[in-house]
Each structure stands twice: as structure tokens, then as C-alpha cells.
């Protein structure tokens, strides 16, 4: 009961806070839109995590299983770690997001893409690699996590200068 009470109280206080902000003109859009936009919030914590496992946990709250349905296209050797082209495509259905991580970078998470319905589960981008490392791609599909790994050898680091 006490928990219920405090949860309700929190909701009321939150609601009051939002209303006050709208009243002051600080929140420029309506509440429903704001709540929908909460899903699109930048995952600050995940981008602070040093290790790949911590970043995945912060981002998704679960661990991925390796899948051969996640196809990563990455070079064997990257001569310039500052610009490493990586692309991913998958035959998994109901994909909702795709994330790129580099195990040996100072911050493991590089990029996380949201894939709404109607958008194909395929992304190309260019990332920085501090040194030779595993590149990990995580695909969220149907509420589950799948991953693919590939080691990319770096001859000149991209985070050292």
C-alpha cells in the first residue's frame, strides 16, 4: 500500500511539474508528445560506459546472443583507424535498433540507430578505432538481442591523433 501511495504521489508530482513547465512556456509541446519522445531520448549513460558489456546493459538491459543472421561488412585491416567503414545488414525481422561497439575504444559504444517500422534493417557508417579491436554489432529484433563480431586490425590508431 505504501508503495502504491508513493508511486501515485510521484506521478502526481511529475504531472504537476510538467504542467508548471508548460505554464511557464518551458515545455513547448504537449505532454503526450513529450511522453512519446521519451523513447527517443539520447542514451547518455550507455555512451559513458567503458566496456562493451556495460554499454549493452545500459542500452538494452539484456545480453545478446551471437547470430549468423547479422552480417557485418568491415575491413580485415584498417590503415587509418580514424575512418573505418562498417556496414551491417540482417535477415532478422522486426528489427527496432542496430548498435555499433568497439571493444578497445575508450568508450565502447560508437553509434546506436533506431529502426522504425518501414525502415530497412541495414546501416552503413564510418567509425573511429583506437587500436586493433573486436567490432561488435548488436541488433534488437522482436525484443531480443543478436550480435556479430569481427576483429579489425588497425595500423594507425584513430583516437590517438
Amino acid at each position, binding site marked *: 500500500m505504501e508503495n502504491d501511495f508513493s508511486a501515485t504521489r510521484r506521478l502526481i508530482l511529475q504531472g504537476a511539474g510538467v504542467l508548471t513547465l508548460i505554464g511557464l512556456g518551458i515545455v513547448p509541446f504537449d505532454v503526450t508528445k513529450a511522453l512519446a519522445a521519451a523513447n*527517443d531520448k539520447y542514451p547518455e549513460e550507455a555512451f559513458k560506459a567503458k566496456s562493451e558489456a556495460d554499454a549493452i546493459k545500459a542500452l538494452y538491459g539484456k545480453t545478446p546472443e551471437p547470430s549468423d543472421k547479422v552480417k557485418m561488412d568491415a575491413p580485415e585491416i584498417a590503415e587509418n583507424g580514424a575512418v573505418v567503414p562498417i556496414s551491417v545488414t540482417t535477415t532478422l525481422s522486426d528489427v527496432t535498433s542496430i548498435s555499433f561497439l568497439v571493444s578497445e575504444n*575508450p*568508450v565502447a*559504444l560508437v553509434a546506436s540507430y533506431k529502426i522504425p517500422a*518501414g525502415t*530497412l534493417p541495414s546501416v552503413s557508417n*564510418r*567509425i573511429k578505432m583506437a587500436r586493433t579491436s573486436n567490432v561488435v554489432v548488436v541488433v534488437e529484433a522482436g525484443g531480443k538481442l543478436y550480435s556479430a563480431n569481427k576483429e579489425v586490425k588497425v595500423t594507425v590508431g584513430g583516437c590517438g591523433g
Partner: protein
Amino acid sequence: MASTIRVRATSSGETTEVQALIQHPMDSGFVKDSKGELIPAHFIQQLTFEHDGKKVFTADWGGGVSKDPYVKFAFKGAKKGDELKISWVDNKGATDTTTAKIQ
């Protein structure tokens, strides 16, 4: 001021392929300058693509994305002549927005 965003969106009938190239230093905060001082982190955090008021793609980026970032994706439900709205915000609160016509 010219936009920092260059976009090419081409429709093949069913799907629209989008390629974007953005001018941004994407400083990770881990690199030192010639005097040995750390260059402060300065990178785009979120990049969104909207078609017809609906988000078709959102990129959340950290400092590990290359300088002058490039991204490619494809989506369904648009046709030639439609507009695509692209905008980004970086960790210092700077933003840029542009629109591109689907070809």
C-alpha cells in the same frame, strides 16, 4: 550560412535510399592537440530523419563516430518529390536542420 548537412535521397519506387554527410569535428575528448592538451569532446549526439512528420531513422552517436560523419540507410513509404527533414544536435547544444527532396 550554408548547411552542414548534405543529403542524397533516391527513390527506386518502393524504397528510398538515403545517404548523409555532415560537417562536424566529432572530437571524442580523448585526443590531444599539438601542445599535448586534450581537445574537449565535441560531437553530434542525435541525428534524425523525418518523412511526412514521422521519424524514419534516428542516430544516437558518441565520440567514436568519424569526423565529418557519413551514414546510409533506406526506408519504405516515400515517393519521388517528397521532402525529407534532417536535423542534428551536438553535445554543446548546437543544431542544424535541412530538408532534401527525394529524387
